[in-house]
């Protein structure tokens, strides 16, 4: 005991200094006021019948699970959730990640001029403001637009015929650069000795990718999936500028439906409740990916 005393406080446990609270205070206050406050307020509003204008903009009340019950019977909400998942899985998780990976691999093996040209073109699409991308793809997919000329049906308006496919492609076109950059960086950082060893051992290209490169890239892939899911789940500008959720409700993903409920139908409470569902979907995907990244090779 006495010996232990002379050694000073134990270092294998976390120590707490009250003075550190002072240092943490400014950051904590900002976090509370600017982040947690609004989050909690939204959580509360999501369980009320608050309206933007009209009598319930003043006399609103806590309505318990009413918004949740309404959601379950709301065919637009159900279709909208399905479209959101389709959009995120199709355009972002599969489309953007697979194409991004392919581009990264092809560019890695390409000669320098091709790498520079293709890389710049892909990145330019990403650097363009979203609204510009929306207008480009709007014009591209209209009757008489480039797409209809390429396909030989100049009177077909593809934004009306296959609206979800067109907005998904537009989103993919814009965002693929992000995945490509992430994967390129990942590929560059692979240890060359492992790759060389696999090559010397006579592994085919396919086997090298399947057994060596992709497993080594796993953390990069998971990070990419996590980021693209979160970014695409809340995609609003592109879809709204192209279709406003139409025709009908064919492209009404959850962010568009939240906007409609809150700012077209003036149902702030119900709109907020739907946005909470969006957060839950995002949290679910994030947990899935975080788990996947933990079970390391």
């Amino acid at each position: 005991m006495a010996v232990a005393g002379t050694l000073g406080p134990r270092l294998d446990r976390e120590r707490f200094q009250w003075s550190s609270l002072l240092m943490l205070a400014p950051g904590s206050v900002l976090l509370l006021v600017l982040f947690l406050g609004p989050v909690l307020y939204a959580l509360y509003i999501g369980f009320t019948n608050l309206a933007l204008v009209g009598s319930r903009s003043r006399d609103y009340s806590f309505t318990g699970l009413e918004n949740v019950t309404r959601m379950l019977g709301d065919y637009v909400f159900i279709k909208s959730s399905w479209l959101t998942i389709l959009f995120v899985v199709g355009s972002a998780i599969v489309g953007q990640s697979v194409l991004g990976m392919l581009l990264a691999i092809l560019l890695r093996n390409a000669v320098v001029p091709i790498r520079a040209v293709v890389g710049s073109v892909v990145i330019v699409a990403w650097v363009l403001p979203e609204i510009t991308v929306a207008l480009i793809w709007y014009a591209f997919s209209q009757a008489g637009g480039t797409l209809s000329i390429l396909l030989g049906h100049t009177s077909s308006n593809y934004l009306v015929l296959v609206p979800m496919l067109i907005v998904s492609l537009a989103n993919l076109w814009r965002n693929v650069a992000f995945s490509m950059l992430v994967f390129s960086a990942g590929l560059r950082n692979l240890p060359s000795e492992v790759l060389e060893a696999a090559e010397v051992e006579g592994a085919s290209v396919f086997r090298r990718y399947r057994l060596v490169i992709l497993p080594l890239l796993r953390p990069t892939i998971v990070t990419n999936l996590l980021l693209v899911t979160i970014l695409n789940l809340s995609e609003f500008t592109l879809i709204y500028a192209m279709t406003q959720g139409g025709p009908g409700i064919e492209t009404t993903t959850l962010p568009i439906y939240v906007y409609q409920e809150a700012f077209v139908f003036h149902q702030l409470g119900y709109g907020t409740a739907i946005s909470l569902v969006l957060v839950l979907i995002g949290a679910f995907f994030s947990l899935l990916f975080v788990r996947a990244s933990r079970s390391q090779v």
Partner: protein
Amino acid sequence: MRNPGKRFGVWSALLTSLSVALMACGGGSNNPSSTSLSDDMTGTITVAYSTTYVFDSDDTSVIWWDKVKKEFEAAYPKAHLTLQGFNGTDVDLVNKVALEYKNPATTPDVFMLPTGYVGQWVGSDYLLPLDSFVNDSSKAPFWKSFPKVIQDESRISGKVYAVNTGENNSAIYYNTSMLTNAGISVPWAPKNWNDLLTAARAVKKSGQNVVAFWAPAGTSAGAGGVLQGSANMVYGSSTPTIFDYKTNKWVVDSPGLREVFQFYKSVYSEGLGGSTSDLFSPKAVGRPVVLLKDHQMAIAIGSNWFADAWTEQNRHWATAAQEASAVPLPTSKGQAPGSASTLGGWAVAISKVTKHPQLSWGLIKVIQSDDNQTYIANRAGFVPPSQTVAHSDGFLNFAPPFNKAFGDALPNSKLVPSEQEGYPAWVQGIGQATGQIATDPSTSVDAAIKILHDTVANQVGADKVETLK
């Protein structure tokens, strides 16, 4: 090992107290009892309005509001007017200003808003009743020149809450020579919807390669697109009811609605209508103005402001008066009253929380001067509420002969029930139903009725919709 439980305890305590505080804030909105009308006529008042959606061009909006500000500050030397213009559409304006009204400190004193929203603003208890002003002819010299239908437009539970500054109504525009080329004699006077279809079919058959008939469809142009499009057809149908005030329910199925959808089916299945690229464009409301001017369209359901949009100051179509004409939209089978149109416009209201009710009324008086009313009617494309202005040369000679045609159509024009909270849902429903027919003309009338029914019932509840026989 950390003790996550302990940390959670600290955080949860913090969060609980914060959320309680927030809930207290949320619930504790102000509730002004009654506003005193006394005013020292000194200080600053603010007016909120749309810079981009009312006038035909943004620069005329700036000119008019600057003129109003100058005249107001000259009339009330100790007062100052802050102009608070908002960009975007009518929906954007209403959303942004609705957020301002959440707090008395950011609430504008005067708000120029679409007439359809006055009811909802009153429902929020945001507006000052204006009866003591409008009933005093020294304070409201213009009021007696308003027709009763316009005086009553913003009268809710017996009280007047807003003063109209201009109306929009609709009729049929047509290109004279295109109809002549198709063998239709002009001046054309369609008596029923069949006459409309006959003319459109003749135009298509004549091979002029133009849009034969513009029947607005889809949701992209929002409430404005429906007001200036399909809602007119509903009012011209055999059951011209959108909202049933007797039962307080939305009409989602009626013989009239079925007539409207059948008419749309004829237009789109026979290839008489516009392209989906034009119909579903966010600029759909303005497309017929351009297509008529560019000689690419023969007949269009259109709003009175088109004519002002063709004047020299705007999208100049110098020969519009010679090349085009306007006639009232007939009723479906020619039934009384023979023609139909929607009616909707803009009005100015005073906020209940204002500290300067008299100054705010002073601003409305300036806005309502004959001079300012003539300017806004001409440059924003309004039918003026004041009959003095409506019959003045300054208005009638601005865009002849169209201004007169729409002025004459005013008696048969009816308000849409936009003061009801479910109106945006009805707009969405009819937009989706007509849009579906334009996209796929094989859509049955039953299917279109189902879209309208489902969309409205989903928002307002199945117990708030009904079928009229």
